[in-house]
């Protein structure tokens, strides 16, 4: 039983930049442990001699000409959704407290 501890959950949350309430930590602790238990039975499967399949197209190194293509996307359209815009600059909070 891969029971995740409260610390495990808090560590995952930190890696994923999520901030959880105490209730959420408890809830996810239980749910994630169950889910991980279910998927853990894969470790009994014999995969000797097999390579992983990361994608199934069989395509490799798809290239295109190094040319600028105009798809009609404007700067204004791209900046329209920015929450904190200063002219054309994206404003962010200070990094250090």
């Amino acid at each position, binding site marked *: 039983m891969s029971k995740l501890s409260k610390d495990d959950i808090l560590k995952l949350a930190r890696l994923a*930049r999520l901030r959880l309430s105490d209730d959420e930590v408890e809830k996810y602790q239980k749910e994630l442990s169950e889910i991980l238990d279910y998927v853990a039975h894969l470790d009994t499967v014999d995969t000797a001699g097999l390579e992983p399949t990361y994608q199934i197209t069989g395509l490799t190194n798809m290239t295109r000409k190094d040319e600028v293509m105009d798809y009609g996307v404007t700067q204004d359209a791209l900046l329209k959704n920015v929450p904190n815009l200063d002219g054309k600059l994206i404003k962010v*909070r200070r990094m250090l407290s």
Partner: protein
Amino acid sequence: MSQWRTIQEEATSVATGATTAVANVQKALALIDANKDFQAIISTLSDRALQRAKELDEQIKNGKAAGRLAGVPFIAKDNFLTFGGETTAASNILKSFEAPYQSTAIEKLEAEGAICVAKANLDAFAHGGSTENSDFFVTKNPLDLTRVAGGSSGGSAAAVALELAPFALGTDTGGSIREPASFCGIVGLKPTYGLVSRSGVVAMASSTDVIGPLTRNVEDAGIVLDVMAGKDPLDSTTIEKNPDGYTLGATPKQRSPKIGVIKEYMGDGVDPEVKRCIERAIADAKNAGAEIVELSLPSLPLALAVYYIVVPAEVSSNLSRYDGQRFGYSEKDAATLDDSYELSRSHGFGAEAKRRIMIGTYVLSSGYYDAYYKKAQTVRTKLCQEFAQAFSGVDYLLGPVTPEVAFKIGANSEDPLKMYLIDIMTVAANLVGIPAISIPYGSAQDMPVGLQLLAPQHKDRELLELARWFEGIKS
């Protein structure tokens, strides 16, 4: 009584002047308005749709070519980036997001004159099988308001079953087109991975996401696929389309297909009444000249575990872009950049998104990557091999889509794992990249049952022809 004829008939109707694009758009918007109780639609794109319709009508009036789908309205799942309104992915983190460009699939349909009139509800970020994970509301099943329409393309499936428009677009990462199509009694096609560009569709799991049509009949699905399919410079995982295209045309091909029944999909976990519908399909096929064999793919029971490692891993990566800085919800009360990231994401994402992000983060983290993610992708290789082996002996595979019919709203929502188990028969096709389709085939407990047909990679046209054959022989 049918609201819309077939896609071809609707297109001809506009082209010959029997009706106008504007009339079609107005009709679709009226139908959407009249069916609000089902909660299939998040938003309409009325202004832009009417504007485009007017332009198309003008073009047609002046004798100019307006595209093979000119004036045919459709609905897109709200994870397709579209102009004229918002794209939310049914998530609070993207509420009021206005797309700066459109998905290639939408562009291709518009180039042929089709008109997107509305955005359909989904489980937020396509995480789910019932739209109960939508941050906004649950889509009800058109045949029973107390039951789910399925998901994650639940809104799209309900919209087609309600005939709000002749067709809708969905995405299928683990069954999200096929399952709701099955629950709502319509056709849902999951094409070969890479056949339709994913550019401009909110990414869930990049190695399994596909775009596909939801329609009322197989021929319509072929036409929509035909328009959308093909290599796209904006998506380097796209593949060439079949030079014969996917429009089936009038003459069905002569058929004596060899079909394998997947033993692992016909086990004890399947509702006996659902199984009976599939058995009826098998009997119909035999009577019509098909050769049916029973096949075993012994690694199939592992597919769900592979899926729930690989997909959350890819989801955690794809959702890392929602950080409150360049787009989407941004927490106003954030002092530092870290606060901004954490609070924007925590307040913007729903519970299922957080669940999947954390599972994904766990299986990719140092010390666990080999045991989980790499192991899962290696079991994926086993699955690919078993499917290849199966297809060396038969042309197609069949089975149910889900173990049960559309469940009651709330029945599975307290238990994430129980919800995941509904996907048990659909995920394998995504992991190995093959095309699969759900077509309505009878009912159980007064709710529709879908028959799932699968074909080898790149055999989408053949799969559509088989599906149409089944439509014709259904007893």
